[in-house]
């Protein structure tokens, strides 16, 4: 039983690390600030949650604290991503030419 939990914990840790790696890869490959925020701040959510779950399997005594870290992560991570994106948009950050449509800019032009 203990061995099984150890294996599950290890697998969770590795898959968490894999998602974190994809996140960093996205940060490098994405063309503009908005897409970088998407890749960089959010594939890391699942990556970190999986890492925490893996740690909880290996160290059950930390369970409550790890759960608390997860809850804080879920509530604070999107707020920071939102503020970053909002500020970038207000300051007129360059958008990749691939961008199909920007209804926010259209609406702001309408008001101005």
């Amino acid at each position, binding site marked *: 039983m203990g061995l099984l939990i150890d294996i599950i914990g290890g697998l969770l840790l590795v898959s968490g690390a894999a998602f974190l790696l994809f996140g960093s890869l996205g940060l490098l490959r994405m063309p503009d600030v908005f897409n970088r925020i998407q890749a960089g701040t959010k594939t890391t959510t699942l990556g970190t949650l999986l890492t925490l779950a893996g740690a909880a399997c290996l160290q059950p005594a930390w369970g409550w604290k790890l759960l608390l870290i997860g809850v804080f992560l879920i509530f604070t991570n999107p707020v920071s991503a939102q503020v970053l994106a909002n500020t970038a948009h207000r300051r007129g950050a360059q958008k990749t030419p691939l*961008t*199909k*449509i920007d209804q926010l800019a259209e609406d702001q032009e309408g008001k101005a």
Partner: protein
Amino acid sequence: MSTGKSSKWRDTVILFATLTLFWLMLSGKLDTDVLIVGAVASLIIALLYRDGLSFFTEFRFTPQAIVAGFRYYGYFLQELFKSNLKMAAIVLSPSLPITPGIVKVRTRLKSRMGRLMLANSITLTPGTLTVEMAGEWLYIHCVTLGATDIEAATAEIVSGFESYLEVMYG
């Protein structure tokens, strides 16, 4: 959105309970001195920040809302997993197949906490990111653009989370 005196006290009590629970999880002990320090600190913070938002602000404590809460987190984790896999596939494919854009969607939710949770949920699932909120309107940046008219985009991005949050917060 009731701002009556009784609901304010209700919010304070709920905030106090939430903070005390956090304290217990963090300290991991049930000794008397630990409990007293935690309770006093929670009470002071709850009284100072009674107008702020916390997890259960505006939460409707009905059986339906609690069931919807659990189903919401189930749905949320499922979406989180699916969209992370999608994002990983995009990042790993050599051609980087993205069609980004910012679309406007509308929410039926009225409560502050409901809207906050909706915007957070949209942001947390990779591929969609809330850039701006203006009343009932949300502006969402998508890595792979779907529908661009308001109704269709709302159905695609918002409706899944909204149906649960509507029962939880209104």
